[in-house]
């Protein structure tokens, strides 16, 4: 009887998602694995990477804001933001198969800018065959369910604000952070994603951003820099003595971020395909090229002329970011070139642009504007140079190969397209970040987005009543329901009783 009931319920579900004839278990297994890898880059990856890079008194706050930001994004993601990035165009119903801005009216422009907000909570919206309606015609049909697409894209949406958390660490109020993050996801990230990935304007122009050199890293670098300027600097003393408190934590976090990137770039074809594998090995080639380039530059051109571990970590991050836009569009030689060239550019910026007064004035605590902003900007432009048309992302339904062609293969125009997309992200995200934080600042009773100086002097203990490395000497449990004097007299009575 029970069996029969189960059978009947199954039969009652719409055929469109109950039969799952479209399901490719290999694709789905890889998609969920890749998504989990990317999630691990945030928690604990960035939590311990940043946690190790800050002073001891900030480690709890830093790790905590990483976890809290990750949580805050998922709520808005499933309630409205996913569909703003990957859903249907706002003002038109029906099939927007090849919808493309032709210089038409404002609603047409809007349809190219952001998707229509909608939840992703129903059984159907989770279990149906995966789809990104505005780009479907250019892609083969997905072998993964929608839930896999939503979660995979969530972990990207989540890591982006967590990257630029690095710009505002060591002073931003906890409350400000957890309110700002979902707003930024809604107004900045969803737009970035729709413009380049969801079938918006730059997707139709042929701009390439394989896994988020622009949508994520340029966005994080820009927003972090603007946020750092609006929030204001850390304590003068904290800026001057910004020594990392634990390099072993940095090693753990850095390692998780590096290998987690196999999912970051390897998951983006949405198929467990040859291009997924290409993207994974390209990612690692660009990363080692950038890491070694940075270390060599440190050894021969830096003042100390010594290889440093934290220099290697910077180079590693730059390589990972650099290859992100082009991981599945370049060949192996291209990957090595992208990593080495971008590492040189960011090394120069890190060491020389940082001396410019304007850059010094803004307290971007972890230098996210360099290792993500500039690295992402040039990574995307280098796609325009190195994209190899014979590296095929996938074959469309019609059988034609989807790939991009860079300048060295005779299409210099790709660089211009990349630059256009980059400028759009810089301007929009800079503006959105500035407006949200300025409004929040005006609404705060204190008109400040950061803690008062006496709290900043103490850090974790003043903000959370916790510290990274507590000492049990002198600590006495305060039992609930007992006043302090009651505890003391009870203890005294025990001692007295014991000695009697």
């Amino acid at each position, binding site marked *: 009887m029970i069996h029969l009931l189960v059978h009947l319920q199954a039969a009652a579900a719409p055929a469109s998602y109950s039969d799952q004839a479209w399901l490719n278990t290999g694709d789905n297994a890889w998609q969920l694995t890749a998504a989990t890898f990317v999630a691990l880059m945030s928690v604990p990856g960035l939590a311990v990477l940043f946690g190790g890079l800050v002073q001891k008194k900030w480690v709890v706050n830093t790790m905590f804001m990483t976890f809290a930001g990750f949580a805050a994004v998922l709520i808005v993601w499933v309630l409205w933001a996913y569909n703003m990035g990957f859903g249907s165009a706002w003002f038109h119903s029906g099939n927007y198969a090849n919808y493309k801005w032709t210089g038409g009216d404002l609603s047409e422009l809007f349809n190219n800018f952001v998707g229509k907000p909608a939840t992703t909570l129903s059984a159907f919206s989770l279990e149906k065959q995966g789809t990104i309606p505005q780009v479907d015609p250019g892609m083969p049909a997905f072998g993964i369910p929608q839930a896999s697409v939503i979660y995979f894209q969530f972990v990207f949406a989540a890591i982006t604000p967590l990257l630029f958390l690095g710009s505002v660490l060591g002073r931003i109020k906890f409350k400000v952070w957890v309110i700002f993050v979902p707003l930024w996801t809604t107004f900045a990230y969803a737009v970035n994603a729709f413009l380049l990935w969801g079938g918006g304007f730059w997707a139709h122009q042929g701009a390439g951003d394989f896994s988020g050199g622009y949508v994520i890293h340029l966005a994080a670098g820009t927003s972090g820099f603007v946020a750092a300027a609006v929030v204001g600097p850390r304590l003068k*003393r904290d800026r001057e003595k910004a020594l990392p408190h634990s390099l072993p934590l940095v090693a753990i976090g850095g390692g998780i971020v590096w290998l987690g990137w196999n999912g970051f770039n390897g998951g983006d074809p949405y198929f467990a395909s040859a291009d997924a594998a290409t993207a994974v090995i390209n990612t690692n080639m660009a990363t080692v090229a950038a890491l070694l380039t940075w270390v060599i530059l440190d050894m021969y051109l830096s003042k100390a002329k010594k290889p440093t571990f934290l220099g290697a970590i910077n180079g590693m991050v730059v390589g990972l970011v650099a290859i992100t836009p082009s991981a599945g569009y370049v060949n192996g030689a291209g990957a090595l070139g992208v990593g080495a060239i971008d590492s040189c550019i960011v090394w120069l910026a890190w060491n020389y642009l940082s001396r410019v007064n304007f850059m010094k004035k803004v307290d971007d605590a972890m230098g996210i504007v360099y290792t993500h902003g500039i690295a992402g900007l040039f990574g995307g432009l280098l796609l325009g140079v190195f994209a190899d048309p014979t590296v095929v992302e996938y074959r469309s339904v019609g059988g034609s190969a989807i790939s991009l062609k860079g300048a060295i293969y005779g299409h210099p125009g790709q660089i211009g397209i990349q630059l256009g997309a980059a400028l759009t992200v810089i301007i929009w995200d800079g503006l959105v970040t500035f407006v949200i934080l300025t409004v929040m600042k005006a609404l705060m009773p204190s008109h400040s987005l950061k803690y008062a100086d006496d709290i900043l*002097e103490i850090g974790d*203990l003043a903000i959370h*009543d*916790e*510290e990274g490395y*507590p*000492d049990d*000497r*002198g*600590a*006495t*449990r*305060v039992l*609930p329901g007992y006043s*302090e004097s009651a505890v003391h007299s009870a203890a005294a009575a025990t001692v007295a009783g014991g000695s009697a």
Partner: protein
Amino acid sequence: MILVTAVIKPHALDAVREALSHVGIAGMTISEVQGFGRQRGHTEVYRGAEYKVEYVPKVKIEILTTAETADDVVEAISKSARSGKIGDGKIWTTTVDNVTRIRTGETGPGAI
């Protein structure tokens, strides 16, 4: 010869070091210590359990100096470590019988 010992708030150390360099101090020893005075401890909360933590982190400074400069040293520390709030710390002096510089075997005020 005098040993000046001071227990101060950790973040006052830079200001104290700066002030002492103007007095012409040749060296000092610092250590991280914990303790309590009139300043109350603080509360920490772990997994919902509240703890009263009695000892507060401080920095202890020790400076060997001559009897003539001891007052200047005390004054420099006192002024530079003062925030006016409870918990600024204390300074005390003790007379020292002898001092030896290990490298040369020199003793007395010349070894300071």
